[in-house]
């Protein structure tokens, strides 16, 4: 039998704690609360999978890359992200998961997640997308950036051989999502751009089984693939790391402009979009930068795109900075509110009033959140229950 057609032995791989179904409200609240506690203590990490694989066994994990061009002398140029790596035979791109083999370019992480988890959608965070539901979340090894504050660097900054992974083809992911009552699949934890083909095909498989897909990305991606992706998925949350080229160059190892271009393309496509801005003390938190950011969002994406100003915690190569003061986050929110953005949130501060959603017309609280726990939703048919104002987002499964 073709290995690609084999059913994954998912039930052996998923943790026992996730095998009881269905998730009732009480249980969901308990799970969400635990998730919230874990996040606070810094232990709520995606769990590693449990089967290692070597290069010799990687045939089932490789697929020809979707975006590249062949050059002379067996070289290839990757066209998936703006880095445009030119790669010699037997070498890999910056992401570490795409390899030139004899002049043909391959992804090495097709059907090869190294983490999987059932998360509240609020953890992504997506606040206007099926609130209080779960997302079956997957990631592979690798990333096309190298953010100094990465909280998942043990998977994002390594190659597929360096982390245990499992074989889980697209239909297997969709099947798992359904089994665990997740109305969506989330591509998250690392940068999903680098497993583009797997993500795209999984989104298709999910739709065939009635499961949506959400992408959690830094959007450092070329125009053609982001347009294709936007047609296949149901929401894209973009981590806009800063609003300065210097920060992108020094802290993220990327560029700002392609990310802004990708955001505009996402907007044009009509797919649901939210933005997270991780506020790092002293590096991207000046009034001037935040004003520039929210003005750009308002002018190019409109006031209805939710933006989350999220608290930074010291991680990886940025352990010398303190966690973001809550007052800084509140200052950022005030600037965005003054610009006229409608949905401005504060993230990573459980219990803060700005975790909840308020109707921009009547001002009433229409979704109440505390950490990842949603306790009240007053949105009916996509409108504020109190005044009838349309609330943008995806509210129906």
């Amino acid at each position, binding site marked *: 039998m073709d290995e690609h057609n084999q059913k994954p032995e998912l039930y052996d791989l998923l943790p026992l704690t996730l095998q009881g179904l269905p998730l009732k409200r009480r249980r969901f609240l308990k799970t969400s609360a635990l998730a919230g506690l874990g996040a606070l203590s810094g232990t709520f990490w995606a769990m590693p999978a449990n089967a290692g694989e*070597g*290069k*010799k066994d990687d045939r089932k994990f490789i697929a020809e890359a979707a975006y590249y061009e062949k050059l002379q*002398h*067996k*070289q290839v140029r990757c066209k998936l992200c703006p880095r445009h*790596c*030119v790669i*010699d*035979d*037997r*070498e*890999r*791109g*910056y*992401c*570490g998961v795409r390899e030139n083999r004899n002049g043909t370019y391959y992804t090495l992480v097709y059907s090869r997640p190294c983490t999987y988890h059932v998360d509240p959608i609020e953890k992504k965070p997506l606040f206007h997308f099926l609130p209080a539901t779960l997302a079956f979340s997957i990631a592979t090894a690798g990333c096309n950036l*190298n953010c100094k504050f990465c909280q998942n660097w043990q998977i994002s*900054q*390594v*190659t597929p*051989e*360096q982390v245990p992974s499992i074989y889980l083809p697209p239909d297997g992911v969709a099947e798992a999502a359904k089994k665990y009552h997740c109305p969506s699949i989330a591509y998250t934890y690392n940068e999903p751009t680098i497993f583009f083909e797997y993500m795209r095909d999984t989104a298709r498989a999910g739709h065939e089984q009635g499961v949506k897909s959400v992408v959690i990305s830094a959007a450092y991606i070329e125009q053609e693939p982001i347009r294709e992706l936007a047609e296949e998925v149901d929401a894209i949350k973009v981590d806009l790391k800063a609003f300065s080229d210097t920060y992108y160059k020094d802290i993220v*190892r990327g560029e700002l402009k392609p990310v802004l271009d990708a955001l505009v393309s996402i907007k044009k496509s009509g797919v649901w979009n939210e933005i997270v801005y991780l506020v790092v003390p002293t590096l991207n938190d000046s009034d001037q930068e935040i004003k520039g950011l929210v003005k750009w969002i308002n002018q190019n994406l409109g006031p209805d795109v939710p933006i989350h100003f999220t608290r930074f915690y010291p991680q990886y*190569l940025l352990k010398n900075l303190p966690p973001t003061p809550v007052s800084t986050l509140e200052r950022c929110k005030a600037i965005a509110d003054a610009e006229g953005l409608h949905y401005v949130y504060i993230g990573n501060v459980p219990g803060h009033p700005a975790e909840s959603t308020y109707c921009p017309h009547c001002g009433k609280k229409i979704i109440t959140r505390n950490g990842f726990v949603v306790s009240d939703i007053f949105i009916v048919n996509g409108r504020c229950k109190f005044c009838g104002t349309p609330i943008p987002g995806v509210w129906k499964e």
Partner: protein
Amino acid sequence: MDRRNFIQKTAAFTGGLLVPKLLTASFPALPAKSRIVISHNASWSRSVGTVDSDSMLKVLDKAIQTYFQVDHVRQGWSKIVRPGEVIGLKVNCLSGHGATHTLLVQAVAERLQQAGIKENDIIVWDRLNSDLEDGGFRINYGKKGLRVFGNDAIGFDPYLQTFGQASSLVTKILTRVVDGVINLPLLKDHSIAGITMSLKNLFGAINNPNKYHLNTGDPYIADVNRLPAIYHKVRFTICDAAQAQYHGGPSFMPQWRWPFGALIVGRDRVAMDYTGWKIIEQKRAKMGFKSLKEEGREPTYISTAADASHALGTNDPQRIDVIRV
């Protein structure tokens, strides 16, 4: 514990801490002038395919004797290793065909055993098991024979090592298995870094070399060589330049390879790479190719490796003594 007892125990403890440091320090420091020996074999230069075990041993012995200025080969090896140590041989198999000659590894292993290293305490390693197999090596984790395996077989130390712009995990082969490393690189053109030889070969010791090919590898290649595990354990370099490649590297491109016909040895990796760079440039000029600088890939990491913050060696030709034998 009385005072005398305390002082005795403290002294013993402190002495214990100092032992590894003293052992490390007993290796001779880099001389004021860095010596590089290019040990030629005339028949290797005339024709590809004439490398055999006898000639390899002869060229290697000539290189070691000349480098250390000793009458007997074993005296030279005793300046690199001590009996009873575990020694890693870092080969370069990334390009598959055209990897470090297995004959060179055999020759070095033979001389190491004569210098008191047990056969099973010699670890031949590179990035991946499959790279080693493609290079003609047979994987061996056993208790007999040379051990041969890649980083993927043993994994990386979980603690980040950092210097300058480089932050990497280092293979456990370096951090937990070997006492010292002999670097066995190739001499090749490199499409991004300009050339690959002694310094760049050590990218094979880290988990994320894909992150360090920006800006012609400068300063990353120099930085990686200053990561503590690499800086303290790499003792000597024997570059397999029996055949070299002046263009199209690091991939194997037979049309741009030529039988340089030599081993190039030295302790100073910067002087080694500077010398190798000049060899590549001369050949490129002779074959009508642009210089690496003109192609926008001058190996500036070599001068970075020589600067005061890295202090890995010298790239000053006045301070490099190239001996051709």
